[in-house]
């Protein structure tokens, strides 16, 4: 029965702009609408807030720099969550993998800082990838070989990662000359070049890892849709039985996809630590891993969508700081509310508007074709 339904239901293709532009836009609108109501409740003007937000994110060169700096993190975590999604896995652990990636970056920047920068940069990248991938490997292995549910294990691994980071900063890597749990600063020769080092723009945290994120996005597209390895990951994600039938090993691909995912998440450490903070600190992952879920969902696991969603969240983060600064009763947590609402509408409630919009499109298209013929 279901078969027949699918057969005829699919006769009228829904064009890309409906699936990839209109529906995400409607979901975003719904999230913003509810956010506006929250702002009304706490006694501010939502339209005013939106104006401040947009200006704060894009209104002047410095703002744009900050926005793109946040965007960089979200591209990394968004791609990380997306590659796991393509393999049918829900990686809630990007946060912990980013933390481990950061530890890897820090170790390179702290202990190999006598090396020239053109060696440090690839070395730190490799360390970030390896540490992040290793942290993802364990849940992946447990899922692939022992059937432990990856959602739960990655949640647990976030907590364990946080404990490790705290332990390292409190007991091992703590700056002997400091009080707070953070490492000594990296020396300047290990820092990533800023954008403002090259082009005329105000000083912002935006650094070359943004370019790296874009390169990775292109690589992601190529890998997923144009190589046999990406093909295998997608087969496993869509239909594990078909994978086994066709000789594609689900466990191998689960582990590979999760390690790529963890490696991508680990790059947050590059941007945050080597690029901006220049030392290992607590909580540098700042929820980027969780937002990565929203980014991947909104971006429909496609690099272009992920870039746009990352930009949106980058703008929210940057504009949100401005908002907290400018408006009396709004603080930075408002951004978290908007984030959560976007995840709610574009993720959990994705089936709320979609059927209605698609049906409306079908009616519209049918009327059009009838008119034509």
């Amino acid at each position, binding site marked *: *029965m279901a*078969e*027949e339904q699918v*057969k005829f239901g699919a006769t009228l293709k829904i064009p890309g702009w409906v699936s990839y532009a209109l529906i995400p836009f409607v979901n975003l609108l719904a999230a913003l609408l509810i956010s506006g109501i929250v702002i009304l409740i706490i006694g501010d003007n939502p339209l005013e807030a939106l104006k401040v937000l947009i200006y704060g994110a894009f209104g002047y060169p410095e703002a744009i720099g900050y926005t793109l700096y946040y965007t960089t993190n979200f591209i990394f975590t968004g791609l990380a969550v997306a590659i796991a999604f393509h393999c049918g896995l829900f990686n809630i652990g990007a946060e912990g993998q980013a933390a481990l990636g950061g530890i890897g970056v820090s170790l390179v920047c702290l202990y190999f800082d006598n090396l020239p920068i053109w060696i440090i940069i690839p070395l730190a990248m490799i360390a970030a990838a390896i540490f992040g991938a290793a942290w993802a490997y364990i849940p992946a292995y447990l899922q692939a070989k022992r059937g432990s549910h990856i959602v739960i294990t990655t949640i647990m691994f976030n907590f364990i990662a946080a404990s490790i980071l705290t332990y390292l900063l409190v007991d091992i890597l703590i700056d002997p000359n400091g009080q707070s749990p953070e490492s000594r600063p990296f020396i300047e020769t290990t820092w990533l070049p800023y954008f403002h080092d090259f082009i005329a723009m105000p000083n912002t945290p935006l650094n070359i890892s943004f370019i790296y994120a874009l390169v990775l996005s292109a690589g992601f597209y*190529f890998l997923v849709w*144009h190589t*046999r390895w990406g093909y295998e990951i997608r*087969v496993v994600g*869509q*239909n594990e039985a078909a994978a086994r039938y066709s000789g594609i090993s689900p466990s191998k691909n689960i582990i590979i996809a999760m390690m790529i995912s963890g490696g991508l998440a680990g790059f947050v450490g590059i941007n945050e630590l080597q690029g901006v903070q220049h030392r290992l600190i607590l909580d540098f992952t700042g929820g980027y891993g969780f937002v990565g879920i929203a980014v991947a969902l909104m971006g429909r696991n496609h690099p272009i969508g992920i870039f746009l969603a990352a930009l949106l969240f980058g703008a929210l983060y940057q504009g949100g700081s401005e908002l907290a600064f400018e408006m009396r009763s709004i603080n930075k947590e408002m951004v978290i509310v908007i984030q959560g609402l976007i995840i709610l509408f574009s993720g959990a409630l994705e089936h709320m508007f979609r059927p209605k919009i698609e049906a409306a499109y079908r009616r519209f298209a049918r009327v059009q074709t009838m008119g034509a013929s």
Partner: protein
Amino acid sequence: MSEQSPALELRRINKSFGPVHANKNISLSVDRGSIHGIVGENGAGKSTLMSIVYGFYQADSGDIYVNGQICPIENPQSSIEAGIGMVHQHFMLVDTFTVLENIILGVENGYRLAGGLASARKELVRLEQEYALEVNVDAIVGDLPVGLRQRVEILKALYRGAEILILDEPTGVLTPQEADHLFRILDTLRDQGKTVILITHKLREIMAITDSVSVMRRGEMVAHVKTSETSQPALAELMVGRSVLLQVEKKLANPKDTLVSIRNLNYEDTDGVPRLKDINLDLKAGEILGIAGVSGNGQSELLEVLGGILTPKSGSIRFEGQELVDSKAFTARNLRKIGFGHVPEDRQRSGLVLSFSANECTILGYHDEPEYNRGLCLDRKAMVETCRNYIKKYDVRPPDPYLKVSGFSGGNQQKLVLAREMEQNPDVLLVGQPTRGVDIGAIEFIHKQLIMMRDAGKAILVVSVEIDEVMSLADRIAVMFDGGIVGELSAAEATETKLGLMMAGVKDAQSETKAAI
């Protein structure tokens, strides 16, 4: 309610799913105390119709009368209240519950369980005796064999006071002998005044047990006849709308060398349960070996072991003299490379990726072949080109290599799988349920293709739960029961009775039936 009014009457039922008109103006009348059969091909709309009667779906228009009274059925609850019970094709039981808990689910009789369980226990003793339906009410359902689970389903319906019992393809999971037992139960039910509706696509069953029969075709009711006044060929013609060749046209096989020899093959599942026991089989070039058996007796595992999906526990599989088991090469991918093609039993579950386009599914299992790769890249152009050729050669509709696989009908999906596996020109072709859920036109086409492969000198293994299909396709038939091979017959020796007995695990069915003659 008058004595003459039918137990169940449907008037002009219509139901559409989107543009699919699954039930068109269906009218039906079922007499009280009778067994009424409904036959039709897969997708003829039988299950939809019964789902409407059971309240699972709502009809778009039309009326349902129970005992002459109009009876609006909105959900399963109202159907149960109207005295209708249904035994679904896939049992609706909670495996972790006891029989008793399953039976009272939904009719617990108060918010506390204790009272309901006690009274149900008493009532069940009575029902079991009245209808000869013994079952241990404290057994965990998941531990029961299939036949008993079906009995639980029947008890469930009777416990709810069902006067009309609908059974949807009830014999699909039973041996012919178990099916006979079920029919005796249905007889008893009829004698006690219950009304039974039997949905099936097996004409033999209709002839054996029903009093009257209705035939559905493409969503329409095309005939109502008394069983005593019709015959299998007549019903088949009504089902299909034209006279059907029940026999596949083929020349006598000309078997050559043994390509694959399987010796003492054993397989255990992940729970350590033996699923294949000392299997010995030979696949010969130019011959179709059919595997008959009730589903769940190891056929699936046999196919999956030969396809390289499962790893055998022990035993040997030799291909052209070369041992395959115990070598690194025993994977699905390598088996394909050395010339095994595999059409899986369930195309949607494993043979295809429904969300992929047709051309992406064209390379499933062959995605690392040089012809589909250029350097690091997949060669998308080659994929589409190959897919276009398959579509043309196998007459797949619609002819669109970019269409998502879910957009093709069952028969066309099956053709896509067949094309992929046959066009790689394998020496050995494994085929599971070649025509499950496929319409008659496509069945003929698929059977012809298989015969052509055979005549081209390929070794073919066909697994099917349809005895008729095995008998008409295979040159040699092996019967599986409980993970083992019960025996082997040549197509000429095979009769339905012999196969039926063997499917029930009777080892010397051959000699027994011979002795009987």
